[in-house]
């Protein structure tokens, strides 16, 4: 079996808390994950779930309390591993006295490209993320969205096989998000492995082959977005319009919601045709009929909601 791109085994992180730093708070609890080459993997969870903690450990910014991880067969302890990965931190901060071009050129030097290659790559990736015009502006003058783009550029300019993105869409306007989505899809097409964390579920649904859901440091589920949520069709949804002169049948009026002329109704699958007949009867115009499946969002909110009524994750022992 080929090496997985990312292999995380029982990764755990405890933080000392309290005035005397005696108690430990477990921010990541024995996470085990496996991401295959070429996968686009979404790491989901609300803020504070442990997503960033995991990423930082993989990058060697913080050190695990226990557990290991490997990327493309190399332990996260090895420096060589970093040649093959790219990382975009959550809120990118860069040296604000440098220009975008200088920053990328600086980072490029760590990979042993010669001067010509560096120049070419820097230019190429700057225009890929749409910063060609601002290439020679000092980073201290960049907006958040622009910094985000620099973040992506510096993560991929050395053509890494595995790319880690921490909240890549945050701070971007819809156009920017679209561009980032396209970049990610493009990278995926090139066969690279993408591991990105987000709390924007629609992005995960759209971009990921598989997702993992993290809550309070614990892994709650791994699978394709479809697998995570039940495949069970929970009913049908229909959008329709009704002419002004007609009144809706009572049973429909009770259950339908409207804005002006437009109505939306949810019905059980067995009821669908009966309702449609009734609508035909009052000359309603059917706009759409679609199956209702709980989205990732629903699954998510359920999970979080359930969690909220429970006792929060226990503090793990006293030192």
């Amino acid at each position, binding site marked *: 079996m080929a090496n997985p791109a990312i292999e995380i085994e029982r990764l755990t992180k405890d933080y000392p808390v309290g005035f005397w730093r005696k108690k430990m708070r477990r921010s990541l609890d024995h996470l085990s994950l496996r991401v295959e080459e070429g996968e686009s993997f979404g790491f989901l969870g609300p803020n504070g779930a442990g997503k960033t903690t995991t990423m930082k450990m993989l990058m*060697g*910014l*913080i050190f695990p309390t226990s557990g290991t991880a490997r990327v493309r067969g190399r332990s996260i302890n090895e420096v060589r591993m*970093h040649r093959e990965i790219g*990382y*975009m931190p959550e*809120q990118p901060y860069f*040296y604000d006295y*440098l220009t975008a071009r200088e920053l990328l050129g600086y980072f490029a030097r*760590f990979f042993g490209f010669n001067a010509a290659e560096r120049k070419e790559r820097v230019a190429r990736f700057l225009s890929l993320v749409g910063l060609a015009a601002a290439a020679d502006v000092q980073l201290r003058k960049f907006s958040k969205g622009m910094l985000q783009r620099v973040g992506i550029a510096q993560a991929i300019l050395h053509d890494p096989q595995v790319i880690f993105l921490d909240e890549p869409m945050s701070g971007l306007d819809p156009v920017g998000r679209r561009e980032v989505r396209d970049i990610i899809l493009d990278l995926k097409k090139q066969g690279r492995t993408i591991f990105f964390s987000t709390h924007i579920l629609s992005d995960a649904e759209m971009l990921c082959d598989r997702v993992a859901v993290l809550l309070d440091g614990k892994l709650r589920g791994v699978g394709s977005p479809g697998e995570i949520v039940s495949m069970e069709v929970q009913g049908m949804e229909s959008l329709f319009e009704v002419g002004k002169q007609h009144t809706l049948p009572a049973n429909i009026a009770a259950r339908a919601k409207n804005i002006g002329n437009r109505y939306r109704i949810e019905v059980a699958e067995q009821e669908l045709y009966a309702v449609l007949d009734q609508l035909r009867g009052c000359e309603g115009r059917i706009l759409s009929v679609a199956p209702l499946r709980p989205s990732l969002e629903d699954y998510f909110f359920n999970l979080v909601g359930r969690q909220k009524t429970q006792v929060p994750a226990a503090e793990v022992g006293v030192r």
Partner: protein
Amino acid sequence: MSVIPGVVAINTFREAVRDRVLYNLIFFALMMIGAAILVGQISIGIERMVIINLGLSAISIFGIIMAIFIGVGLVYKEMEKRTLYSLLSKPIRRWEFLVGKFAGLLLTLVVNTALMTLGLGAALYFVSRKFERGDATILVAVYFILLELALVTALALFFSCFTSPMLSTLYTLGIYVAGVFAPGILSVSQFTSNWELGAITRFIYYVLPNFHNFGVIAAAAHGDAVPFTLIWHNTLYALLYVILILVASAAVFSGRNLK
């Protein structure tokens, strides 16, 4: 040998150059040298001596200030501002980062000191229209100042790995002052009849970085020669001590969890 520290060093140098605060310091230093010329006019007969004394003292003081001022933020700033997040994800070892920051600041200090020394040389020439053989000692004094600066920079870097700039400044300054008065510490052990106190002060004397070793400004002012053995020993001393501090810094920093 890895080229990574050099890459970090050049970038650190670039940062220092673009930090406009530095220029104020250099300006003040040059002003001091100008003042030295004026003072020299007042004390007739010893203008050269006064210029060399004041000039070298100014170069030394401003060098120390710069070394501490920038040094205490070398690692701390990168941790606070999280610029380290993207940097450490690159193929770079933590010790390479430290060595690079150290080298970058040292390079900055060397360039600044060189500029100020040129200013001093110009002032000297302006006053006496010639250079004397004994003036070579001025260059030795400047070289020793650079050795001092390397030590101070390393100390500041070390503290920068784990404490705030304010505390780092206090600690670094404290060690520097103690190091300047090192012979005084030794004399306590020589003139006390208390054996324990003598042993402790002797130990402290040999452990503290001894900045008094580098003090040849008086010799430079008089044009006296500095023995080559002292130059050689001081160089070795500074080199070994800097390595010591960097090794300790690497030990501390390589275990640090960034927030």
